[in-house]
């Protein structure tokens, strides 16, 4: 009795199914139809090409600062795939793969990065929250959504995302602690891409893994190979199944890597060596998944080329759609409150007069744009 080790009740596992060479662990291989495999591959391809195009658009000054998710496609897609449409998907800001899979019109995502609220507006029936900027804050409303789902009495779940850096925030802690204490159907996926802008993973926290932070909340944690789409699907399926049965939250640490810049305003050469990036290249989630499905005979080179063409066309269409969008400058006055207050009514009138004043609605002479370092 006097001095003892305390037995911890929660499991912290690690999971990897499809290795870097595209070899699968047969015992763990999740059941996926050919159709599923194709869907997943297309979604990953689409996300990759979208990212590449966005980087180009940014360089051309056609959108604002952009935060790519290159190399992280599996980590955000797996959970999107493993849940139902009626479940909720609560992204942070590096989940274009999952968001596109969930049905966000690509043009809207482009418009978000182009500085338009319409890019944060999901389609009428989507159970999806928009991109969230304040790091870790979305864990809280993710938990709140899970609470609502629990109160609704069905078996729906919410999946919320956060970065490795975000685990340092108080909101990460409060959200997970409350979700666990209330037994909410919430799955939290940490996209551990090893960097919070310039702060490497090991300087963010002294914990060996991020998955083990689950112990603090009395829930299970699992560290997955985040570049392994099969592991991501499987880990999420397990967590979701548990949550649906009232088993409460699970913490998934998806170990992945930020292959590119934090955002286009960032210059990673200041703080990380190319050598660190190198070993991650062969771990590319697309490369190994391609190996897997082509070995399986699900898709051949010709099919893949065809798919790439379709994806390119889809992206170009989205670019066009987004660039033909014109924001309505009066709209902000309609969306502050359900009804305008007298002050807003008056300010709206002033603003309208101002816009009419020189016919084009653009401010003249105000601070010129200078945002070299804004991420």
């Amino acid at each position, binding site marked *: 009795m006097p001095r003892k080790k305390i037995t911890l009740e929660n499991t912290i596992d690690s999971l990897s199914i499809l290795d870097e060479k595209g070899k699968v662990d047969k015992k763990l291989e999740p059941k996926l139809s050919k159709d599923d495999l194709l869907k997943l591959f297309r979604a990953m391809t689409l996300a990759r090409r979208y990212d590449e195009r966005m980087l180009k658009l940014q360089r051309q000054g056609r959108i604002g600062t952009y935060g790519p998710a290159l190399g992280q496609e599996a980590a955000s897609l797996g959970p999107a795939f493993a849940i139902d449409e009626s479940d909720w998907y609560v992204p942070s800001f590096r989940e274009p793969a999952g968001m596109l899979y969930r049905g966000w019109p690509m043009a809207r995502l482009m418009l978000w990065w182009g500085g338009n609220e319409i890019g944060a507006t999901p389609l009428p029936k989507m159970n999806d929250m928009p991109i969230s900027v304040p790091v870790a804050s979305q864990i809280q409303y993710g938990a*709140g959504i899970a609470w609502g789902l629990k109160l609704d009495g069905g078996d729906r779940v919410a999946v919320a995302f956060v970065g490795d850096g975000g685990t340092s925030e108080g*909101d990460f802690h409060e*959200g997970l*602690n409350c979700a666990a*204490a209330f037994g909410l159907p919430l799955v939290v996926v940490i996209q551990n891409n090893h960097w919070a802008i310039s702060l490497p993973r090991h300087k963010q926290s002294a914990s060996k893994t991020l998955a083990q932070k689950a112990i603090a909340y009395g829930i299970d944690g699992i560290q997955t190979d985040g570049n392994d789409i099969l592991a991501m699907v499987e880990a999420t399926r397990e967590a979701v199944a548990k949550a649906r049965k009232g088993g409460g939250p699970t913490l998934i640490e998806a170990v992945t890597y930020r292959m590119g810049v934090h955002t286009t305003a960032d210059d990673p050469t200041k703080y990380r060596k190319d050598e660190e990036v190198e070993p991650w290249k062969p771990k590319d989630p697309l490369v190994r998944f391609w190996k897997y499905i082509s070995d399986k005979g699900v898709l051949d080179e010709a099919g893949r080329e065809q798919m790439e063409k379709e994806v390119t066309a889809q992206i170009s269409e989205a670019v066009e759609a987004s660039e033909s969008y014109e924001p309505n400058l009066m709209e902000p006055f309609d969306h502050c*409150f*359900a009804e305008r*207050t007298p002050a807003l009514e008056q300010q709206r009138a002033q603003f309208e007069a101002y816009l009419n004043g020189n016919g084009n609605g653009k401010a003249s002479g105000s601070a010129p744009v200078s945002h070299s370092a804004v991420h």
Partner: protein
Amino acid sequence: MAMLNMAKALNLALREALAENDKAIILGQDVGYDEGVFRITEGLLKQFGEERVVDFPVAESAIIGLAIGLCVTGYTPICEMQFSGFGYHGFHQIESHATRLRNRTRGRFTCPMVIRMPYGGGIRAIEHHSESRETIWAHLPGMKVVIPSGPRNARALLRASIQDPDPVMFYEPKASYRAFREEVPDEPETMEIGKAQVVREGNDVTIISYGASMRPVLEAAEELEEDHGIDAELIDLLSLVPLDRDTINASVRKTGRCVVVHEAPKHIGPAAEVVAGIVEDSLLYLEAPIERVTGYDLVLPFFNSELPFMPDVRKVISATQKVLSF
């Protein structure tokens, strides 16, 4: 009609909300079994159960944050911050999401939540339990700020706040919780948010206040009349967002003189906005500078020293006399 104090009146409004709207949920620290540290949620857990009246861990950011998620899934959360001095922990959730979600999603998601916070000094509480920081909330775009002053308007305004489709900061003058009773109608009563009330008509000077400060102001008005023959018009703002400039202007245009009273610090406080609005709309009617009777630009002292640092009858009277003798 029952004679209720403000605590009971608020309790009535909450009870009505839970009964009328089965999506309404009360969440906060000690709101359940303990019935709230001020007993505002008395009897509610018993009547509506643990799902509707939720004892929350000591995590204010999570109270607001989870409430936002509840809103997204169609619920009407009514949050209690135990004291306004601990509401700051949720500031970022309020600023970043609660006040922005409607605008951000072009109305797809909204936050019809209410955040109740007891504020103000004068109850001999320890540090952090006596602040008046309504300014910081009222300055944020996208949130209404309602501050009742008596049992009847507290009940009617809390009902209105819960029914409001947008986030409402409901700032409760805790010194008034049990200070006096009023007739509160049995049938549901709602007041429109954003309308000030002329609680006393007068011709010599306009005194504008809200919340707990209404009590010394009312007393001062009586004394001004009885002892000094000054006929003051009193306005109870009742909400800072929206601010009822029409009512303010009408009165100031009549009296030409004005005093604004609140507990909050003076510097960039609500009184400054009242004055600036009057200057914009009614400058030419002013016959004297407007006096502000407010908290000092200090942290309110620990309770053994706090009373002299708050607005009181004597301060209101002398400011009014000053305005009138200008």
